[in-house]
């Protein structure tokens, strides 16, 4: 299940539903990304998507993860719009029989979402408002999967 939403969501409620639907999976890994305040420098994060294109890209990454690891189920929830510090940005949950697959798939999807996913990011803070370019570290993370 992939959900891109401009409305605040509750990750634990989503995990509850996911877990209830995947009682037969031995391993469930989740990753929650929240807006950091960067030592008080950030007040707001704004994410823009290209409706259709952004979701198709995520769906493709999920398909690749499912082809690569034996997964029972995958859930990706991504916020768009304006978010305050501490709000949930992204929540990825993977279920598998064994923990290695669940961990690797979750890690892989997060790398995709943080580097290649079709989002534009604007930060509002003490330094004004600026569009954020990807960090080189993010690209390095993502290259881990290409071999």
């Amino acid at each position: 299940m992939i959900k891109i939403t401009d409305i605040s969501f509750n990750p634990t409620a989503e995990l509850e539903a996911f877990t209830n639907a995947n009682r037969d999976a031995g391993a469930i890994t989740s990753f929650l990304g929240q807006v950091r305040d960067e030592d008080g420098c950030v007040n707001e994060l704004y994410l823009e998507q290209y409706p259709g294109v952004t979701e198709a890209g995520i769906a493709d990454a999920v398909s690749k993860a499912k082809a690569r690891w034996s997964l029972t189920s995958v859930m990706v929830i991504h916020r768009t719009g304006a978010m305050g510090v501490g709000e949930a940005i992204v929540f990825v949950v993977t279920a598998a029989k064994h923990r290695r697959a669940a961990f690797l798939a979750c890690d892989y999807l997060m790398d995709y979402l943080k580097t290649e996913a079709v989002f534009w990011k604007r930060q509002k803070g003490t330094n004004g408002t600026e569009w954020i370019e990807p960090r080189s570290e993010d690209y390095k993370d993502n290259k881990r999967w290409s071999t």
Partner: protein
Amino acid sequence: MIKILYFGRLRENAGRREETLALPDGIVTISSLKQWLNTEHELDGALDDPSVKTMVNQMLIHDDIDLSGNEEIGFLPPVGGG
């Protein structure tokens, strides 16, 4: 009608999120449309930045293509993930 979408910082360059227009007289390709928009919205060449990608009907294009006048065109600055 052509629907044009400006993403990220291009929205600020173009002063709009999107616009819908008929292909202007004599404009039949993406490259000529970009040139026309450049003048029309005083974009100062923002669409020609090599990092800006163009999508036609949500497909990435790499070469110039002809337009029929019914496309959705997206201009995408580098994507940074979420």
